[in-house]
């Protein structure tokens, strides 16, 4: 009841309005329902996919691919980011590479990945890794390099040495930026997985949408898009939750508009 009373009803006005308008357009056949199925038909089809259980394996495989790619990208991005930020040598070695590969559109390397890893899960995960890796590595580097030199001096004067400086000062201090990179990447992973599943796949939520389009089941197509949207929102909510948990001190700071 408490949740209900705190719910901001104003926020559902605009989506509700659009749904009603769409429903009217669909029902009155103002536009051919083939192109523009009424929301009721879309939800019916979504419901159908849910009760038959048909939708779940698609969601599961998409999430699995996205999460696997994301974890690999996060681990590699953090590792390389710390390496590059911590040593001039590694910076000189990796920086040109990062700058060359980063601007390449994720989808431009899809053919390469298909050639290298086949059209199975391998290539899809590799593409997710490409999409997620750069925001994480770049934010990690920028975060660590941006740590106030004076703060490091303060820590050193208190007795912190090399390894302690990393674990107790540099990384915690860079954490807001690192986490921001990781949050951007959750959105990237969703973008990439849907796209690549539309290009070549026989499973996954992206496949479901493109397959519906190919078989002219436009209500299924829209239902799939709704699922993609919900997945995206869920991913972002999880990322936000984690961010707030880890960075309570920082979000408070930003909200208060002061910097400590």
């Amino acid at each position: 009841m408490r949740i209900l009373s705190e719910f901001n009803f104003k926020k559902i006005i605009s989506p509700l309005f659009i749904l009603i308008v769409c429903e009217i357009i669909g029902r009155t056949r103002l536009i051919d329902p083939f192109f523009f199925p009424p929301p009721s038909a879309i939800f019916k089809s979504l419901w159908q996919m849910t009760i038959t259980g048909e939708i779940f394996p698609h969601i599961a495989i998409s999430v699995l691919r996205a999460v696997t790619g994301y974890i690999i990208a996060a681990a590699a991005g953090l590792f390389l980011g710390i390496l590059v930020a911590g040593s001039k040598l590694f910076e000189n070695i990796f920086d040109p590479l990062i700058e060359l590969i980063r601007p390449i559109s994720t989808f431009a390397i899809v053919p390469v990945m298909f050639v290298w890893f086949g059209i199975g899960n391998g290539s899809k995960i590799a593409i997710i890794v490409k999409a997620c890796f750069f925001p994480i590595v770049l934010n990690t580097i920028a975060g660590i390099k941006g740590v106030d030199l004076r703060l490091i001096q303060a820590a050193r004067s208190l007795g912190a040495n090399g390894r302690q400086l990393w674990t107790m000062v540099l990384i915690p201090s860079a954490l807001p930026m690192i986490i921001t990179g990781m949050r951007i990447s959750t959105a990237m992973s969703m973008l990439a997985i849907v796209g690549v599943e539309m290009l070549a796949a026989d499973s996954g939520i992206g496949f479901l949408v493109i397959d519906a389009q190919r078989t002219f089941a436009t209500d299924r197509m829209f239902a799939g898009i709704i699922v993609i949207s919900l997945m995206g929102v869920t991913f972002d909510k999880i990322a936000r939750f984690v961010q707030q948990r880890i960075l309570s001190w920082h979000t408070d700071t930003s909200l208060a508009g002061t910097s400590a």
Partner: protein
Amino acid sequence: MFIIEAQKVCKIFNKREEITAIENFSLKVRENEFVSIIGPSGCGKSTFLLLAAGLESITSGQIFINGSKINGPDPKRAIVFQEYLLFPWKTVRKNVEFGPLVRKVMKAERRKISDKYIKMVGLEGFEDRYPHELSGGMKQRVAIARALANEPEVLFMDEPFGSLDSLTREMLQSELLQIWTEAKCTVIFVTHSISEAVYLSDRVVVMSRRPGRIIADIRINLKRPRLREMLSTPEFSEYERKIREFVWAQV
């Protein structure tokens, strides 16, 4: 026996161009002395603190602390900066316990230390607050407690009250004297304020323009404990006048 002995210290920064920050800087400080360094902006006051704290390397000359030549930072020498430089992700208590933590002091002992110094700076009840929840004066108290938690022999203070409003500043000056008496350490205090220097110190050292060296070393023979009323006495004004003369000759 001097706790700090700087001999002909010279520091040249090599950034885009060579800048000699301090030159021929010699200073001797006795144990438990309170010495202020005053001088025009950019004269190298802060540079000397960084050198003595072991945070910057000396170009030539040497600094001895307790008879041994300094070689990098040491928890026995603490420094408090104008910008507080607290760890924003740590609570007041965790900030104060940082020094003991990196020195691998056990948890129960750390707690005892943080209790002691948080009490000394008058921040009981704020142990679990984060720095952004504190006022400037409170942040600087945390920074002082954090520095003292390592039980340093020497406390370097780099314009610690420079960014505080004048009322808070006066309060913290009096409290610092109290803390200094309790904590029993040597203080080297860099400031721009002549009255602050006279009020706090046993000796006030005046530096020249860059490259900085010492041009005057004035003993302040006002009795302790120092009271705020002393600020309006003729003796106090006389010290101020004398120091101001030296400082103005430099700007």
